[in-house]
């Protein structure tokens, strides 16, 4: 168990050292959420503070999934992922390491944005613990989603494109702009299948708004279940591709 955790840590650290500043990571993982935040501020500065929890969740989603597209798809292209498979570590450990690296990247980007927003629009987080726990758990879930997408394709641009198929609908259906409870009943089930929905619900509560879907503990539990499902699916796909 100790060696597994150590190997996860080593792989995550290596990824962070090697890939944090790769161009697709900067464009999709940092610049895109930043532009998104600026665009919504310029559109309606007075109502902007209501959007902050959702926009932070969005930056977490984009930064983590972008990092996974690099650390998995790029390494598959160069053969470096295969090199990892030569070491005495399991496929699950390798992917857990890559997901952890992506999660740390997402958390870092989100906290940089949070710091900037706090400086520009002084606000305070009502439930700091819930906010931190939500960010940490969501980062792993989104990163696992990014891993699932990345093991399924061959090129980095394919990973980014396929990720957008998941990411863009989430922007509009996860309760960022329109509360999930106000969505047409035919669309609601789709919103419930999106992990961002549960993150935004928790984040809004942490910022002092009412939760819409369920108690935050249940929201976090759903996010953890999502993370494990994405991890297991990624492992299955990668093993299948190996054999």
């Amino acid at each position, binding site marked *: 168990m100790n*060696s597994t955790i*150590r*190997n996860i840590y*080593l*792989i995550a650290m*290596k990824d962070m*050292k*090697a*890939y944090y500043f790769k161009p697709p990571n900067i464009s999709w993982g940092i610049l895109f959420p930043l532009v998104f935040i600026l665009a919504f501020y310029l559109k309606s500065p007075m109502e902007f503070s209501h959007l902050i929890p959702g926009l932070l969740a969005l930056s977490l989603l984009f930064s983590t999934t972008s990092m996974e597209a690099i650390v998995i798809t790029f390494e598959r292209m*160069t*053969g*470096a992922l*295969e*090199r*990892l*498979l*030569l*070491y*005495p*570590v*399991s496929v699950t450990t390798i992917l857990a390491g890559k997901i952890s690296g992506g999660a740390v990247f997402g958390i870092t980007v989100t906290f940089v944005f949070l710091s900037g927003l706090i400086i520009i629009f002084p606000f305070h987080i009502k439930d700091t613990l819930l906010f931190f726990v939500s960010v940490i758990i969501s980062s792993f879930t989104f990163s696992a989603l990014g891993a699932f997408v990345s093991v399924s394709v061959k090129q980095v641009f394919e990973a980014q494109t396929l990720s957008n198929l998941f990411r863009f609908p989430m922007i509009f259906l996860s309760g960022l702009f329109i509360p999930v409870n106000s969505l047409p009943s035919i669309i609601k089930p789709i919103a419930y299948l999106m992990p961002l929905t549960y993150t935004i619900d928790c984040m809004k509560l942490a910022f002092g708004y009412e939760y819409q879907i369920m108690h935050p503990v249940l929201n976090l539990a759903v996010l953890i279940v999502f993370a494990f499902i994405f991890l297991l699916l990624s492992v299955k796909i990668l093993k299948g591709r*190996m*054999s």
Partner: protein
Amino acid sequence: MDTVTVKELKKSYNTFPAIDGISFSIRQGEVFGLLGPNGAGKTTTIRILSGLTRPLSGTATIMGYDVVSNPVKVKRSIGVVPETSNLYPELTCTDNLVFAGRLYGMSAKNVKAKADELLHLFGLQEKSDVLFGKLSSGMKRKLTMAAALIHDPPVLFLDEPTTGLDVMSARALREVIQSLKDRGITILLTTHYIEEADRLCDRIAIIVKGKIVTIDTPDALKKSVKTEKAIDIKISHFPYFIEKDFLNITTAIKYEKIEDGFRFFINDIDTFLVEISAFIQEKGLIIEAINTVAPSLEDAFVEITGLKKEAMVQEKGSIK
């Protein structure tokens, strides 16, 4: 004692049989070569033995551990140098080696010392802080080999180690392989360079279209070639008008002009040497060099496989 044992190993990609029931074993400390054209199944064999690909059927064990049921133990026992130098371009030479060693469970202190030792062994100590991506092809190959040795594996797999390298880098790498052999490491080497296999391997398996055609020592393979005996003679300042007199040498079946002299095809060396000596003396000539012509491993390969030697340099997927 056999370190690597492969029995009736099969692997297909879709319906194409990449390897078709190959069997061989490698003794401890032996350098064993898999020699064959591109697409013969060499890399597939290494991938299966490394735990990267599952075989369709058959068994393979390394140091007694089955590659399918005990992959972690197998991976601890082997070092693999894949066909492409696939370390991390964004990490320095030292960081690449340290990362590899740490994944084998080595302590931070031990892995740093071992990394320094290997950088020195491969002549890369000056490059320790240089990014892997900034190295030349030859240096990348050396560092990839160093990474494979970081945990002192008893078995090393080298997949086409000198392909794509310039002459000097290839020669330097062959010297390193020779030194690893001297250290008692068991080496499985795949190559399509016949001369490389001849120079480095204790035994060679010739593999064509997924099947092993023969396994033997380079010398035994050469001896198995049915060629006429021949002797090359270089004569200084040879007056070519007397060339027709060679026809009078009765112990030579025939002769032909070669780049720097003449090649005589003969039945018996002793009687030919007596006659040619008398001929040389009679004509007042001086022999500059005399060599018996032995069949090369290339001759053996061509005779055993029925392939032309050019088949060895064809690109992957083009072998028919």
